[in-house]
């Protein structure tokens, strides 16, 4: 089972994602924005990063850029949680080094299916 960093400024989304992942047996580290996430990722090596894009303090795209620059996160899968209106955001995320994206809204099942693909 993997250790997953779930980043979202919305508490309800964080709760939902975290509950779903924990239910599937994963370890979840929660963070409420990019700054928070970066700090937690540094002190706590995770296997997968799921991050919202639009957040205060540091957005998801910048977070991914920062994480990718760290040797320990060079190859770590990182997915953005983005909305359907954010096509350019998906690409921005990709350019920053994201592995892929999950489109909001997603159901717990869709989330788990995607995670399973990435984690193998």
């Amino acid at each position: 089972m993997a250790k997953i960093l779930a980043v979202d400024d919305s508490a309800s989304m964080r709760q939902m994602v975290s509950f779903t992942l924990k239910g599937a047996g994963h370890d979840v580290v929660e963070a409420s924005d990019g700054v928070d996430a970066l700090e937690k990722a540094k002190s706590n090596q995770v296997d997968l990063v799921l991050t919202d894009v639009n957040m205060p303090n540091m957005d998801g795209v910048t977070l991914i850029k920062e994480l990718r620059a760290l040797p320990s996160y060079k190859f770590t899968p990182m997915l953005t949680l983005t909305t359907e209106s954010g096509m350019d955001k998906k690409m921005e995320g990709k350019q920053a080094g994201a592995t892929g994206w999950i489109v909001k809204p997603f159901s717990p099942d869709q989330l788990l299916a995607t995670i399973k693909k990435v984690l193998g």
Partner: protein
Amino acid sequence: MSIDMSQFYQTFFDESFEGLETMESGLLGLDVGAADEETVNTIFRAAHSIKGGSATFGFTAVAEFTHVMETLLDEMRAGDRMVTEHAVDLLLQSVDCLREMLTAVQNEDAVDSERVSNVQKDLEILLNGDESSAAQTENTVEVVSENSNNVSTGWIVEFKPFDYLLKTGNDPVRLFRELSLLGEYTTTVNAENLPLFNDFDPELSYLSWTVELVGDITVESINEIFEWVDDDCELIVTAISSQDEEVVVDIDASAPEQFSQEVEEETEVSPIVENNVQELKPENAPEAKTTPAPAPAPDKRGAKKPSVDQGSIRVGIDKVDALINMVGELVITQSMLSQLGENLTQEKLEKMQDGLAQLERNTRELQESVMRIRMLPISFAFQRFPRMVRDLSHKLGKEIDLRLLGEQTELDKTVMEKIGDPLVHLVRNSIDHGIEMPDERQAAGKPRMGVVELNAFHQGGNIVIEIDDDGKGIDKEVIRNKAIEKGVISENEVLSDEQIYDLIFAPGFSTAKEVSDVSGRGVGMDVVKRNIRELGGTIEVKSEKGVGSKITIRLPLTLAILDGQLIRVGGDTYIVPLVSIIESLQVRDEQVNGIAGQAELYKLRDDYVPIVRLHDVFTLKPDSEKLTDGLIVIVEGEGNQVGLFVDDLLGQQQVVIKSLETNFRPVEGVSGATILGDGTVALILDVVGLIKLSKQERIKAA
């Protein structure tokens, strides 16, 4: 795996209502024409979160509505749309609308769908000045349905990742694993780009593959697998079966195919877009004939809000941490006591007593902390005013600058809930009756824009809320005549100014020539006064004709928290409110004038500050009566300064004020008491009272 999504609803509602507050205050602060980028971003983010959450948790109507708002805000954020007065008004209406929708969803009530669809339509009209986004979405959906005919009995997938692919966290193994699930699968690897060992960089990928897939497979399902990596590789997908109808998807280069790729992404995983197309239409069509939305009723909103708030209370983490800390201590004490109790002997009795005292202290601290949770900054009551003032000034054609001061002043949640409506009424009154029309103000030599100021602060165990306006003031003659007319007073009764102003609060007294729908609704001033009385408070009006009025509300705070400086006089500890302390200093003899014990003055720079010897006031035995042995704490109250002579300064801490009046009796110079960590009672000094005392003493001495 099935998850009950309803467990996340409460969090969603809480954060959504909070988001609405953020949006509202952001919108109110937006400068039309030159909107602050970060503010627009914050508003957008709030809408975005509400949309995301409502879509995730299945509140489709809310998601659809917010989607339209979000689109508008997104355009503003991107600078594609000017921030106009009209747009801001519409967005504010949308916030109200959304709040109602969420409240309805939360209470499982029906939504006022007519109002919603009217506002939504207005938003769409504003948005679709150029072209409808809904129409665009519809187009893309159609393109996809054409595309999805691309079923073949087999495909050749040529996949050549760029060397950095691994550094995006994508693993070709994952891609092949997914491909293999589609159908019968054979793969050949091309290793010709593999460098010599010395040049080999293990972090790069050098291989490329050709995969043959056999089965009833759509090109979309293949593209879906490569969706994340289409910019990081060369990908060519060729149908095996029909050579003449070859479909090639070469993603890196050509624009049209890029487009089809995008299209696919949009449809497969975003039911909300389709919903928009399908569900918006029928809703919108019939409503074209309905009358425009009625003007938003601020009252309704104000009245509804508490029902949302009642369920939960937001508490600062520090307060919760303090609680957890104390519970921890309680547990330690408890286990200590039970250990002692197991085989209690005579010699352990003293320890037992210590333990019990500790338990008592823990319990008391815990109780205080729990009560402290109920304390909220008054901004909770103030936050509704910017919107209200904006709406009112629009309606009345007045220009008003609302200033909020002391928003962080804490008061008990119950008091806050009860003071909300009276405050609304008083602010409305100031705007309706106090502030003049711009032209009238200009003629009177005042700025066109009137000022209404709300100020909250702690004073001597009270919370004071002032509502100050620079309007036309209260005309004593008008009130007097009205009171005579109504038979409240007799014609030749002589009244002081105070008594005249007090007439405003008489039942059934209204000076407005006709009851306007602004201040004439709901409670009257008599009810305001009664509410404040019920809270044990007082209300007082001061006014000057032509200059303005000031209403002062004083509420007792049995629970107020105070930042205090602990001081020591002899063996006793007192608390001086930190806000009233100017400085503390050591005394030099040559700067003291006067005879010891009587009217001593301390020369502080250019001023003479009377010295108040606290040991005299409270008849205590100090360490020393020599001023040079102790310290002088310079305090200020109501514009006057005195120097309090104390033995020593101890720490600073937040204290919970206990009323001395209710538990004992009023004591001059003392505003309340508190219990310190070690269990001792410390009196809180009433600085204003002490200054008055010292004045009387000096008069006596003279």
